[in-house]
């Protein structure tokens, strides 16, 4: 330790540069699926933690959707009390190793960090990740304290971040919790969507082991609505309450000609084949994926999913891996870091471009996409400059595979099989935002099925809000919330 956490002046703190996260070299990592970031060492983490000036009014906390006590956990890191930091974070966030990796920090906690006004903000995400990893890698699991059993039973539908965080809290309150998952693998998007090079699956499995130790039961291969309905869970299986965390649903397509050619797929399909079904290991795993080797692949969209898809294609050997996005980089919804990583890995960005039509050969295989260039026009009502097509700028981009990544709708299954749960026009589930209760009594919902595609941390926050409300309700002390 070069500096003593207790005797360091603000000026000295401000002089420390943001500590760089060690990473795999771009030229090497674009050929493998191992994690890009290698993690801060304890020395780097302590040094970074010293950059936090311990504000009297830590505005960063309000920037975090679950209000982690950021100043406090960082102080503990600076003092070298890493396990203390683990405990502090876990008061508010049960999945620090995951959120530290996937939160869009530049739009949340780090966006409002005061240091960021003149310098680079404190690397809150990297520190959080360090703490989460420290707990796992040193094997000093902080298992939460559990209240005595209440005899109440709650069913959780879906094992994504919303369902897992809700399950965690409910188990701590002493309720019996059973999680039902449609797929054969637990974890939701954390498992089948976000690739290994960004979120190693071992971390998710480790979190799941922690939940199992708390007595939470997991049942895979159960599609609620089909295998069993919510009414049956409550009436026949004796569940006192249900939390729905089924995530987003059917992928959207663009509705342009040629979208059904062979070689056009959704990002969900591409990522599911590679991540969930381990197609990268074909033929030792059975599920194939489009052979990208030496081919040209274009991904349409600008979000995290698009970045994950295009970087996956590159890792599968694509010669050209393009992002085709209709606005400019500033508007891309993806995490900043992912965009930068993608650029360094040789992803080619075709910004201000829209696809008009997919072109195929006589066997209906994709051969190219007709695109048109856009330019930024007058600002629209939201103040954003709207892209408008440039007349006569059409051109043909030869590609072998197209991945559509423009978002998802909502899976209609719950609505179809539980009509008394109110949904919006977009089929998202309507809830009371204070309790996450749906229009059906004792049935709660949260995560992407309520908000539409959002973030891991928002889904987790929703799961926790619901758990608190369910706990109150089951204890018979529920307050009455009328505002919807």
């Amino acid at each position, binding site marked *: 330790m070069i500096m003593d956490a207790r005797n360091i002046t603000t000026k000295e703190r401000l002089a420390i540069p943001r500590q760089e996260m060690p990473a795999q070299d771009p030229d090497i990592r674009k050929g493998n699926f191992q994690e890009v970031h290698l993690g801060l060492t304890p020395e780097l983490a302590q040094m970074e933690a010293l950059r936090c000036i311990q504000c009297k009014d830590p505005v960063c906390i309000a920037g975090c959707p679950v209000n982690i006590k950021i100043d406090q956990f960082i102080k503990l890191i600076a003092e070298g009390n890493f396990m203390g930091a683990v405990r502090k974070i876990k008061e508010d966030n049960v999945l620090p190793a995951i959120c530290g990796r996937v939160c869009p920090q530049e739009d949340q906690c780090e966006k409002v960090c005061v240091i960021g006004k003149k310098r680079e903000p404190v690397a809150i995400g990297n520190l959080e990740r360090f703490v989460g990893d420290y707990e796992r890698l040193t094997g000093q699991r902080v298992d939460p304290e559990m209240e005595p059993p209440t005899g109440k039973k709650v069913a959780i539908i879906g094992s994504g971040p919303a369902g897992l965080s809700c399950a965690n809290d409910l188990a701590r309150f002493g309720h019996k919790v059973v999680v039902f998952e*449609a*797929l*054969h693998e637990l974890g939701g998007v954390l498992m089948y969507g976000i690739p290994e090079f960004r979120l190693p699956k071992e971390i998710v499995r480790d979190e799941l082991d922690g939940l199992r130790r708390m007595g939470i039961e997991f049942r*895979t*291969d*159960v*599609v609620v609505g*089909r*295998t*069993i309905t919510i009414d049956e869970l409550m009436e026949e299986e004796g569940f006192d309450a249900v939390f729905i965390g089924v995530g987003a*649903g*059917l*992928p959207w*397509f663009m509705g342009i000609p040629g*979208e*059904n*050619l*062979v*070689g056009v*797929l*959704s990002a*969900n*399909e591409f990522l*599911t*084949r590679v991540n*969930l*079904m*381990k197609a990268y*290991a*074909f*033929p*030792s*795993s*059975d*599920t*194939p994926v*489009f*052979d990208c080797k030496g081919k040209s692949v274009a991904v349409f969209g600008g979000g995290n999913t698009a970045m994950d898809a295009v970087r996956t294609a590159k890792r599968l050997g694509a010669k050209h891996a393009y992002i085709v996005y209709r606005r400019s980089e500033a508007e891309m919804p993806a995490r900043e870091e992912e965009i930068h990583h993608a650029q360094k890995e040789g992803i080619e960005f075709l910004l201000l471009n829209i696809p008009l039509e997919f072109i195929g050969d006589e*066997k*209906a295989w994709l051969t190219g996409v007709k695109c048109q260039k856009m330019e930024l026009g007058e600002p629209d009502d939201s103040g954003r400059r709207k892209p408008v097509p440039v007349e006569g700028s059409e051109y043909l981009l030869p590609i072998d595979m197209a991945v559509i990544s423009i978002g998802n709708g909502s*899976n*209609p*299954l719950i609505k179809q099989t539980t009509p008394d749960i109110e949904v919006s026009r977009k089929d998202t589930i309507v809830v009371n935002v204070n309790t996450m209760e749906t229009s059906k009594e004792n049935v709660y919902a949260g995560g992407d099925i309520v908000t539409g595609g959002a973030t891991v941390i928002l889904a987790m926050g929703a799961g926790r809000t619901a758990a608190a409300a369910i706990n109150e309700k089951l204890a018979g002390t529920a307050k009455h919330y009328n505002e919807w």
Partner: protein
Amino acid sequence: MYRIVSAIFLAENIKKIEIEAPRIAKKRKAGQFVMLRNEANGERFPLTIADSDPEKGTITIIAQGAGKSTRELNRKEVGDTIADVVGPLGTPSHIENFGTAVSIGGGVGTAIAYPTAAALKQAGNYVITINGARNKDLVILEEEMKAVSDEAYITTDDGSYGFSGFVTQKLQELIDSGRKIDFVLAIGPIPMMKAVAEVTRPYNIRTMVSLNPIMIDGTGMCGGCRVTVDNQIKFACVDGPEFDAHLVDFKNLSDRNRIYLHEEKQSDEAFAHKCRLPQHT
């Protein structure tokens, strides 16, 4: 893990397997399917639920060895397990009393048509079944089909049993004989379903087909199973698998089903190489 309680070959390469899956057995309706995964690292693949016994808590599937996954499944015996069985998936067949209903099955499609034919019979239809196979040895479910039919026909391509010719010829013969047909269900290879659609189109006979696009999750998450029906995108695993035959773009389906031919062959050959044991019948 799902335990196999009975397993018998119905014909060469076509096996009937009864699996313990009490929740699915209780819930399933005609026209629905399950997604299976033989082992960890296996692929997820769909099979129609041919029958179920809610009391016993079992479902029955009938699989034709088409490639690695189905062949591997068909090697399993009583007492063996299947890693995952998920369902019942898909929208159940729309069943009503149409009047006279003709159920047409081609090859293993007969197994897929069987539960719906049974449901049509139960709903009070006059049920005619036409089941086609390439030859006598490949005819399956003859007794079962007879039991749910008012009239049952078998056709073989080589004339070795029953009517000599294609199922569409038999159907045309029925139509030409002046029989009033109110509903047709056709399940089998894509060219067969397309041919049936063309036979019934001029007569405006309501015709349903069960589509077999490549599925991955089977729960409506990936969009891999999308088919073009009435010029719109539909997801066969949630909106189907049954669709109005006169609105289906069959060419698009058969084009799209060819995407992994090369990889499927690779898998199958590797599997054959690994076992080298003869397939028993």
